[in-house]
């Protein structure tokens, strides 16, 4: 799953829930899924560490 998809799905779920049209069973399932997507997105942002690499040094490091 990529970040954009997760975020898009999360926002669709919020819309569906806020419309108040989802029956309870569905609402609870959506909520669970939404929380899962939120955790995924948050984790992607929290765990990513900034990194700047030079291609040339990478290429050298890759050599045996």
């Amino acid at each position, binding site marked *: 799953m990529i970040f954009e998809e997760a975020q898009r799905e999360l926002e669709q779920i919020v819309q569906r829930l806020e419309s108040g049209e989802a029956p*309870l069973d569905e*609402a609870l399932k959506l909520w669970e899924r939404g929380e899962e997507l939120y955790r995924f997105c948050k984790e992607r942002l929290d765990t990513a560490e900034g*990194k700047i690499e030079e291609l*040339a040094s990478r290429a050298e490091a890759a050599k045996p």
Partner: protein
Amino acid sequence: MKVEAIEYGDRKVYSVGAFNRGVSSWLQRLPTVWVEGEVTELRRSDRWASVFFTLKDPQDGSCLGVSMARGQFDALRLELADGDRVHAYGRPELFEARGEFRLRALSLERFGLGDHLAALERLKTKLAAEGLFAAERKRPLPLLPARIGLVTGNDAAAKRDVLTAVTTRFPPANVLVAETYVQGPRAAGAVVEALRALCREGVDVVVVARGGGSFEDLLPFSDERLVRAIADCPVPVVSAVGHEQDTPLCDLAADVRASTPSVAGRLVVPDLAQLLERLDRSRAGLERGTRRSLDRERRRLGGTHERLGRAPRLLLERRRAKLEQSAGRLRALSPKATLERGYAIVRAGEQIVRSGGSVEPGELVDVELGEGGFGARVEETR
């Protein structure tokens, strides 16, 4: 052409003339090509069959001797001055008598800025006709690239501008930088190679950044190979080459054109703070939405429960109403209503008196009226 060698035992030796003839005949097999350079050291004499000059590469100073038939040269009336840029069409040759290598020019054209522009315009029209610059080819940039490729010169400015913009907006960015030539005849090929290398390494988006420069400095970024490589790049490309007013063809082929390297940097990453805020808003919406569903269900359940509670009373009331109805009908049949209309019931002892003959004068009777009654004595019977 067969070149004769002298054998000294196991060593084959060529005379200078034979060597030059051999090299010359080999050189003659090379194709005719166009060569671009600046004219210097033009030497012309009415006594010579050829004119001579040197073509100099303005980028790296490489030199190439050129000769051209005087009649042809004069007919062109080019009025060349030192430093004029020309395109010479010809093939390499060896001046055998002196062992000097040079280009034998068959044709010569002045090539100034106007010609450059015209050539660029021709290329632009051709590539546009192929659809290379078409809007429907443009791909959206990824919202959150896992890794960003950056093609830039080793001059600090453009590279620093992109990196600063990227890391300010999105500190956890992951950038892979490919430093390469961004000027001179090797630049176009080098940028193409850098693009490919970055894609091999795996990036989600590539920024090609180069600071401003002269028209000629930016020419490699209009090179057909480079423009095609950008159009064919498997991931979206952001082009930030030169200043706002320059439009090298790579800008047209790129998916997004940025006016400066800093703008390019800001385009390829999301604003982390904004992203977190949006995510938190989504989460709040998630809770709010779910609570709304729950509340609605709870209300509905409450309503149902209330109706359930009302049901027995309703039943009772219905029965009571029915009872009242029966009582009404019952009442209508009772003598009470008759008495109220003015009739009376006369009893003698326990017996209701129905005829005059059933009582004796002087007998005591009881009279019941609609309201109350009285005792009476019979005066006479009929």
